[in-house]
């Protein structure tokens, strides 16, 4: 996994959080990833990566006790730094993809 930038899995998780409305906890993230990537995701990996992203300052978290379930969940939100990195990596990717869309569409 990249030290400075964002790794692929990290990227996917951050996008999944955005899909969930910018703040989410691991369960919907796992489900989201499974649905979109159509493969089984390891919960422990998600758990570890979420905390690594927080260490990197790309996510921020808070604990919340659910009223009806009685379970405590850790909700993650993307920080400003995280948003900036996402945008940068998207821009970089888009630049690389320029002019290739049609070439790949055929395949």
């Amino acid at each position, binding site marked *: 996994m990249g030290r400075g930038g964002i790794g692929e899995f990290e990227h996917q998780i951050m996008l999944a959080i955005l899909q969930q409305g910018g703040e989410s*906890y*691991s*369960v919907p993230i*796992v*489900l989201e990833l499974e649905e979109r990537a159509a493969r*089984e995701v*390891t*919960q*422990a*990996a998600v*758990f*570890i990566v979420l*905390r*690594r992203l*927080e*260490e990197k300052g790309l996510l921020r978290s808070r604990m919340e006790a659910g009223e009806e*379930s009685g*379970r*405590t*969940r*850790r909700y993650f939100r993307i920080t400003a730094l995280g948003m900036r990195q996402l945008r940068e990596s998207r821009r970089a990717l888009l630049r690389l993809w320029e002019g290739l869309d049609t070439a790949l569409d055929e395949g």
Partner: protein
Amino acid sequence: MGDLEKPEGPPRPGWLVRLALRWLVPAAERATLLSELRELWEKRVAREGATAAGRWYRRQLRSYPVRLLRARLSGERAIRSGGSGEGAGWLAGAAAEVRHALRGWGRSPVLAATIVLTFGLGLGASTAMYAVVRAVVLDPLPYEGGDRLLRIYHAVGANRWNLSVADFTAIAAQQTRFDGVAAYTTGERTLVSDDVVERVRVRGVTTGFFELLGERAQTGRTFVAADGVPGAPRTAVVSWGFWQRSLGGAATAVGRSIRLDGQDHVVIGVLPRAVGPLEERFEVFPALQLEPPTRKGPFLFQVVGRLRTGTDTAAAAAELRAINRRIFPIWQAGWQDSTSTWGVMPLDEAVIGRFRPILLVLSGAVALLLLVAATNAAGLLTARATQRRHELSTRAALGATRTRLVRLLVTESLLLALAGAALGIGLAALALRAVRAAGPDLLPRAGAIALDAGVLGFAALLAGAGLAIFGLIPALQLLAPRAGIAQALRGGGRTTTGATSAQRMRRALVASQFAIVVPLLAGAALLVNSFLHLQRVDPGFDRAQLLTMYLARADERDPAQALFWQQLVERVEALPGVVAAGVASGRAPRDVNDTNNFDPVDRPTPVGSAEPGAVWLVATPGYFDALGIRLIEGRMFDARDTPDMDDTSVLVDRTWAENVYPGESAIGRRFYEGGCKAPECSVMSVVGVVEDVRYLGLDDALRGTAVGTVYVSPAQWFGSSYYLFVRSTADPLALLGSIRTVVRALDPALPITQVATGDDVVDAALAAPRNLAGVVAAFAAVALALAMIGIYGVLSYFVHEQRRDIGIRLALGGRPRAVLALVLERGMKPAALGMAVGFAVALAVTRFSARLLYGVSPHDPATLATVALVMLATALAACWLPAWDAARVDPARVLREE
């Protein structure tokens, strides 16, 4: 996590997962992780069904250990247990250190394995021994206020006998120094319940017994005073094991009736699973109903009392003696021994007293073994450290700090100590399982032996000591300023200045090893010698082609009893292949528990002194034929001996005759038995003298005050349980089937137990000394081998180091024989010194084994001389090879190598 345990929940995580979670994830996060996984599982159950979800869940859990460990090792700050980020870095550093150390040991695997194996063996044996000694000897009795429990005994000279009903009732009525006293018996009875017939171990107890010990029933109740009133319905308390096995473990078992020796007993309570040493070997505890005594004997009861607070043992003993004197006149007509009195001893002493010397000897052996193992390991490590001086010097030259080198050495030692400890604890666990399985028959309180925190703590202590030895010796040696790395660097790794101190240390280790091995080997040799003596003892009967078994009928006093046994013997004698058959109430060499006092009519015991005692056996004439016991004088029992005779006919053995009537014939002599001198008591009359049989142990250890053996005939003496003895023409066990048929035809409810051939019973009597000698000898052999390795290592290293000097010496005309002598001397000197110290120690400590020895004195010169010879030969053999090598050093080659 609590919700995981609901039945509808997902599968429970396995131990590896739980371990990974505990070590790798902080507590707060752990709960979140599992609760989220559970939430995902619930969603999956709804979507795919419970089976698929369960599989998914397990898959997820399986990924935990590796994922979490990888995250932790790669320094993920989130997956840490402490508050600072240092943990992961430290762990990664330690992991590298461990890898490094493992590689180091990988280069000398034999050395590492030797150290781990010897240290592990020593540690395992010591740990197991500690667990046993602590549970059996050191721990207080598991009774509340167990230190105030005293055993009250009948003191006749130096012997401690049981008490009688007369004794017990007097003590119970008159004593003021105890909160209470209780009496109990030891025996076996035949139990009949629902068509099942079995022999059970029974302890009859007075009604205050359980209350006195502070023991409560787990189900039902224990006794009340009304249970002990003669004529009241018979009641019994049963053990947990009996309740489970024979009563189905149901609460409804309380209130049921069981039949013991033909008498119905109502089960009123079940004891808890864990009980004290007075209850542990017994299954049924009927309440004793003591009738008012009519005479002083018989002495069948053991008595225990709880000392009242504020009084002491001496005062209690004085009071007991006073009560004894007070009741003496009441029974004086039948009991004239005014010197016999009552005494007290702590109950724990009574329970474990005879095991103490055995455990002491074994503990000593184990401790010595551990010492040798540790010294040996130290020696090996010293050698390795010396060899590695060059390697470590290079490391130092390349910039490794002193701290770093010490860390490496310590990690290496830590690995050894840990591996040794793991091996040792594993071995200890196995050993303890075996001891526990053998149960209270092997050792009292065996059930309490456990590998618990205390024992593990002890093992940790030993491992720590091992670590200190393994780590400190090489580290000190390397880093000491004088023999330090810097010097090694200067000397190019070949200097001998550093090596001299190492050599000195190794020679000291060799000396101490020999000093330790001597007492161990001496102890083993004494025990083996004693066992050999014991094995040669003539038990007094012909053990070949002999079959024995125990038959116990209900204890009913009816005339049919004698008839039954007579018929049994006749029918067994009629079986094809049977040479002779008979019954007797005891079985040599150990299974005799009836001794009786007697008083010759023609030379009465002076008033005020103790009557002599004799082993008392009821036996038929066929018994003497079956065992090949020769008649020396007079006649055997025959048809003349009937209940109608005035006197009861008895046979006595040679020892009895020689002791009681030295130089005269014993035939026709008459004596009173059991203090029974009233007119209605039958007087014994000697009709024959037979050869001796060892009934009191092969070593005669149980002899006590018995001056010989007296036999009475079942025709004139009541008995309900007998050993059957059958001599056959061929394999005695082949007769078992037909004997069974005979017994069943006469009494279908009679169980046959303790079947053993003549060889079996003698072997069984030899088992304990054989095992003890075997174990100690094994320890001694291992220790001797270790000492051999130790001295060999020292010398071969010395020769290796001195090759150049030896070569020069030989080149200058030195004779190989002189070199040989030089090296031998170098090895034998510390060995001899160590042995001298060892013998001094051995002379001081072997006397502790005196109680375990038969026919050998603890200072037996022949045995000790043999030990000295063996040790010298061993040391010489170990020194010879390196010395031989030295003498054959090729000077030309050594000098060329320069």
